[in-house]
């Protein structure tokens, strides 16, 4: 993997996108950049747009509390970790990994504590 190559390509793309065709040099790379920058015209599908508009008109947005958003974000993180472990090429930023590790440690400590209480005859009799 060439970081220098990645830097060079990035600059070429910026030039190409900024200047239009001809900004990316010559050769096969220029062909690929040219093809890529021309390959994605914004598409317009008015029928789909109207169908989705109707779906949205009948949609009743449910505003979520900050707690619900936090839970949802945690669920997203778990899902991404699952994708990463399944080898689906999902990238995990270090805060996600650190957060997941912290949750695991806390869960393990809590489990050990509960088990100890459960195994303690005095605690069981009480």
């Amino acid at each position, binding site marked *: 993997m060439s970081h220098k190559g990645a830097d060079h390509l*990035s600059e070429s793309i910026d030039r190409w996108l900024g200047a239009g065709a001809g900004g990316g040099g010559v050769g*096969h790379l220029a062909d*690929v950049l040219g093809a*890529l920058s021309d390959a994605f015209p914004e598409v*317009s599908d008015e029928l789909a747009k109207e169908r989705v508009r109707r779906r949205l008109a009948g949609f009743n*947005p449910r505003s*979520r509390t900050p707690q619900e958003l936090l839970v949802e974000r945690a669920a997203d993180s778990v899902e991404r970790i699952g994708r990463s472990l399944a080898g*689906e*090429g999902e*990238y995990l930023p270090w805060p996600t990994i650190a957060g997941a590790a912290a949750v695991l440690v806390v869960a393990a400590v809590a489990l050990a504590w509960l088990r100890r209480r459960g195994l303690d005859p005095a605690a069981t009799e009480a």
Partner: protein
Amino acid sequence: MRKTEAELEEERLLVEAAQRDHAAFHRLYDRYFDQIYSYVYYHCGSREQAEDVTAATFQRALEDLPNFSWRGVPYSAWLYRVASNLLARDRRRPAWLELKEEAPLASAEPEPDELWLVKEQDGELHEAIRKLPPDQRQAILLRFFAGMRNREVGKVMNRSEGAIKLLVFRGVSNLRREMGEAP
């Protein structure tokens, strides 16, 4: 494709207006529908899935509108992020639910608005892009379709600018290999 300061300011005003009055959301919808629909279509190659994911993206946008806070990043970047997450979830569904691009029906008269599907000139390139790993495909589409800078793509994908450069580099290298000398 890239937004000027004036466009960003206009976008901020539109978001704030929609936060005050949901009826004003239609202006955001009209502004971004084609972008999000196209982005999802180029990702998955299916009109049905593009429509469903786009609808789900705007539903999420409506729900989260009260919690959205303006940080100078285009609103479209947030929509791209939601659409990307929904696409990633779709990939985890059973294979029989995955919709592949179908050839336009020979008997059906194409609507004028759908002619772009019939006239698609870049089928080979689009097919090669769909074969890329999802993260490379996403980076390529955000760079070339959405015209985003590495920093903006990084915000959408939750990665560093350097990581995006490498992803695009790998993606373009794979495309060059895939397409040989005649893109």
